[in-house]
């Protein structure tokens, strides 16, 4: 019963730990980018599921009959901002991956390592 009630939050924990696992253990640069995106998606799911109120409808103003409650819309605004930031981060990390492939010839982070010490 506890698992069914808290199902969104358990999914959030699974997503974030999968993202951290990918960042630590995978060597290919594109997989590291996917790990960062997974962490961002986990936090987005957490933000959206915080706004839920019991037996409420979507917060669209022109859709509401009298005396119904709506879910909190500020959590959705925060999630939207985070999606935009995640888009900018993804674009930047993919451009850096293209630049690294052009100069080093490989996408493996064990081999693309000229700065050491």
């Amino acid at each position, binding site marked *: 019963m506890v698992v069914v009630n808290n199902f969104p939050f358990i999914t959030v924990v699974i997503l974030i730990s999968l993202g951290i696992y990918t960042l630590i253990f995978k060597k290919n640069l594109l997989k590291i980018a996917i790990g960062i995106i997974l962490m961002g998606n986990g936090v987005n799911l957490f933000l959206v599921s915080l706004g839920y109120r019991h037996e409420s409808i979507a917060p*669209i*103003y*022109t*859709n*509401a*009959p*009298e005396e119904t409650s709506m879910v909190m819309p500020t959590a959705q605004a925060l999630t*939207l901002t985070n*999606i*935009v930031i995640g888009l900018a981060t993804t*674009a930047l990390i*993919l*451009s850096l991956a*293209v*630049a690294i*492939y*052009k100069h080093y010839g490989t996408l493996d982070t064990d081999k693309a390592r000229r700065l050491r010490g």
Partner: protein
Amino acid sequence: MKQMSRVVRTISSLTFGYIVIFGFYVIIYGHVTPGGGFQGGVVVASAFALLLVVYGHNKTEEFLNTNLLSFAESTGLILFIALAFMGLGVSFFYNFLTNSGGLFGHTPVSGVNPGDVYTGGLIPLMELAVGLEVLSAMGVIILVISGGAASIKKKKEKS
């Protein structure tokens, strides 16, 4: 490299216009139905991505001018900040058009109704500015990254 088949090229050329129109609909109706500046801008940019996948980098770059898109992006950003400055008599970002009867100034009615697009005040204008900025920024990003990939492939084929 071989071209995509004739069916794919024809259908994508036909649907390109409809996707752009739908994107602008999502931008301008952002304060009434779900959507808004960023979402609509990304829909229009996905139309550009469709052209890039179907026709390849070189032909798409002849069709979409990078300098024009970059200029549109700067215009969108400056329009956003200029609209925010206009309310400076009271405070920054003040919504001076709402409930005033001017442009976008109707008062929204309560209850179930089809939705009036002329409400909201300053918000639809800012959505337009943000939508213009997002579509041109995403267009420039996908053109530049695919250009970098195309130059790496050309260098590899030459050597």
